[in-house]
């Protein structure tokens, strides 16, 4: 049997990989996100933002502690929970203590559970999970744990902000809710129904439906329903090709109102919408890109574009992750034991580069921050996306959104 020799090669290779990465005096952050496959574009762009932030905000400032540098180590999880767990194991074996991940709440919940179990079973090499993008509310509610920190506003918080804007618009009488048929789409839908019911009971929800995720080739039939229902506004949590397909289809088929959404920018989507999306797309997100909040943010963005001309800063919060982690490590005085670092992070207040201050809420490790409603537009955008001439521009801001929102999180603290 050849099992033995080939397995030997396998493990030997793995060892080589670890040996290469094992250099002293760096604090390594594992970036576990898709770097190949259909979501690689988003993953690679995120990786660049991390590398840039680590370099600019920490290493060029002299590092943390006694000059320890941040190093981002990339792992391709192919957006698969299984691969993520393998890569998590590889990362832990390389002595990495900080795990950053964001794309897909499914992956995030797999990771947070695995990290929780790992930390319980291996108290000697515990790790922290820096979730910078997965917004399923459950991660900071029922599924929360001490090791998980979320730096993005969760879906409920964003919907809260979004519905504030909708509620303020008297023109809107009928709303159509449509989303992908999975947990995030359902969370968006139920949050929308709840908040609209609270804030504007007079608004009629003329449609509330889910479509299969990633499988719809042609959104025309949905657009017909939306037009036929005479909706004044659409709320959707769609992302990727589903966002583009839905958005383009409704606009082509005669819908003229606004589309309130979460993810309709960068990674080719802004370019693909182009002029079609002008005046229609409204996006909810943290991090003010246009107009730049201050000179520092503008300079940072320019430097980023100089290094990555094809890139976008589409996840502004990544700078918060890096800056806050650096502060926490300095406060804790050590990067190897993550427990004091976690305690330092919890409750930390921080001035965001993109304007406003942010606060890591202690009871559920959810970052409370300003949430903006952006418009997709080609006018007056200092920093466009996808080099398309179009970008997103802040229209409304909800300061420290959902600061007092309830949470069901009950975490065990070591």
């Amino acid at each position, binding site marked *: *049997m*050849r*099992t*033995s020799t*080939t*397995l*030997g*090669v*396998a*493990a*030997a*290779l*793995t*060892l080589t*990989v*670890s040996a290469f990465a094992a250099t002293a005096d760096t604090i390594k952050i594992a970036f576990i996100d898709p*770097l*190949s*496959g259909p979501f*690689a574009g988003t993953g690679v762009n995120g990786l*660049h933002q991390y590398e840039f932030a680590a370099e600019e905000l920490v290493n060029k400032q002299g590092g943390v502690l006694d000059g320890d540098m941040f190093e981002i180590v990339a*792992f*391709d999880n*192919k957006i*698969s*929970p*299984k*691969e993520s*767990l*393998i890569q998590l*194991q*590889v990362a*832990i*074996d*390389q002595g990495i203590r900080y795990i950053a991940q964001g794309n897909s*709440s*499914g992956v995030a*919940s*797999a990771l947070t*559970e*695995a990290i929780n*179990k790992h930390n319980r*079973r291996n108290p000697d090499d515990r790790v922290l999970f820096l979730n910078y993008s997965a917004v*399923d509310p459950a991660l900071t509610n029922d599924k929360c744990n001490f090791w998980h920190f979320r730096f993005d506003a969760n879906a409920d918080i964003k919907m809260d902000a979004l519905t504030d804007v909708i509620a303020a618009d008297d023109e809107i009488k009928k709303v159509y809710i449509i989303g992908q*048929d*999975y*947990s995030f789409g359902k969370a968006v839908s139920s949050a929308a129904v709840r908040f609209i019911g609270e804030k504007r009971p007079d608004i009629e929800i003329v449609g509330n439906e889910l479509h*299969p*995720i990633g*499988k719809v080739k042609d959104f025309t039939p949905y657009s017909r329903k939306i037009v036929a229902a005479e909706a004044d506004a659409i709320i959707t949590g769609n992302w990727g090709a589903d966002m583009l397909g839905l958005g383009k289809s409704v606009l082509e088929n005669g819908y003229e109102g606004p589309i309130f959404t979460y993810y309709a920018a960068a990674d080719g989507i802004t370019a693909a919408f182009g002029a079609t999306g002008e005046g229609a797309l409204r996006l909810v997100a943290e991090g003010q890109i246009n107009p730049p909040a201050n000179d520092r943010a503008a300079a940072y963005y320019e430097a980023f574009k*100089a*290094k*990555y*001309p*094809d*890139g976008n800063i589409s996840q502004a919060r990544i700078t918060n992750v890096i800056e806050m982690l650096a502060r926490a490590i300095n406060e804790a005085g050590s990067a190897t034991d993550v427990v004091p670092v976690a305690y330092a992070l919890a409750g930390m207040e921080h001035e965001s580069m993109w304007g406003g201050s942010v606060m890591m809420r202690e009871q559920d490790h959810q970052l409370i921050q300003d949430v903006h409603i952006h418009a997709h537009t080609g006018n007056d955008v200092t920093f466009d996306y996808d080099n398309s001439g179009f970008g997103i521009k802040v229209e409304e801001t909800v300061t420290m959104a959902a600061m007092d929102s309830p949470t069901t999180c009950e975490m065990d603290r070591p």
Partner: protein
Amino acid sequence: MSDQITSEPTKPAQRMRAGSMVLPLAPWLIAAVALVVLPFIFTNNSAITIMNQMAITIIFALAYNMLLGQGGMLSFGHAVYAGVGGFACMHIINAEDFFAGLPLPLLPIFGGLFGMGLATIVGSFSTRKAGTVFAMISLGVGELIAACSVIIVAFFGGEEGISGDRTYGLPFFGVEFLQQIEVYYLIAAWLMISAILMYLYSRTPMGRMANAVRDNPERAEFLGYSARWVRFYSFVASGFFAGIAGALFAINYEILTEENLNTTQSGIILLVTFLGGVGFFFGPILGAIVFTLVQTVLSLQTELWAFYLGIIFVATVMFFPGGLAGLLMMHVPAWRMGKIGHLAWPYLKTLGGGLIGSLGAAALIEMVFHLRHASIGDHEMTLFWTTFDSHTVLPWIIAGVTTLIGFGICRATAPALVEAWNEANAAPKVAP
């Protein structure tokens, strides 16, 4: 439509004389010893994780080959049987009262039973025909169940899947399976058990008739066997072992998601099995090992790993339909005649050249990719531990020349290899 699987004509030549020995023990003993010893050599957890993944893939690929290689049935949706077995196990793990009384090592039996149950239901109508009809039904059912996984949240948990904690089972001789290494031995034990059982199955009347039905279903019918039921039983047996693989997945990762069911997963197992070789029992084992390495180790080195894998796969189908195992077994006659040594030097020359050429070509591919997709202004790339500027001419010349020289050597030495090959295989025909 015929359902024949091509296998090497050399195959029967090395088969044990029936009746003399049922289970050649040596390879199994070596494998068992290797499985015990490996974690002592490669102690870090990630190596163990990769070995666990490998072992699970091996079981799944062997189960799949019960269909494809032995039964001649091409399934495009076999992941669902492993997946459903795994999901069922996850629910058992989460059924606290029941699980507290169940030692974890017995869990795979339940996975197998659930996989088998689903296979019984689907097989009852899908195995009536082989060939395209079977393949299409398997595709349809696979898509259906995968699509259901996001709709039927109660069982499949939506896109987040179902997770649980394996350590709450009844301790097994004091072992609670907190550590990866304990899980490794559990999986390794099941790997041995499943592989032996599947091997033995191929030696039973059912296993033999599966081959007969694969080669000539009509003739089998005139020997008293219903081709349909033979296919059905193979299918059910395959579902059982796929379910075991799913259960081990549940134990190792403690989570099952939609990706355990979808057509990508089904496609991967087809790829693994075919790459390893469907004509031999150990083919899928090779395939699973190579594939897991490519997926976990090569993907750390290049984001083009799937591209290379695609090339390797298509080349395998076109030039070596026997897969890796077929390639290896081609050498058995020469080896038996003690002439394998004559091939070593010609092989070294030709394959060495081929290897250099392939590395050169890979370098060219990586450079083209970098040139096209790296950010504007990012000229620096690292390849084979060398960092250089992809926008200068020199690296291109080096890579191009390497490729040419490599393939040149390969081409120039190929006739000599062919000659050596013929020489090594030219047997003085001795009638037994």
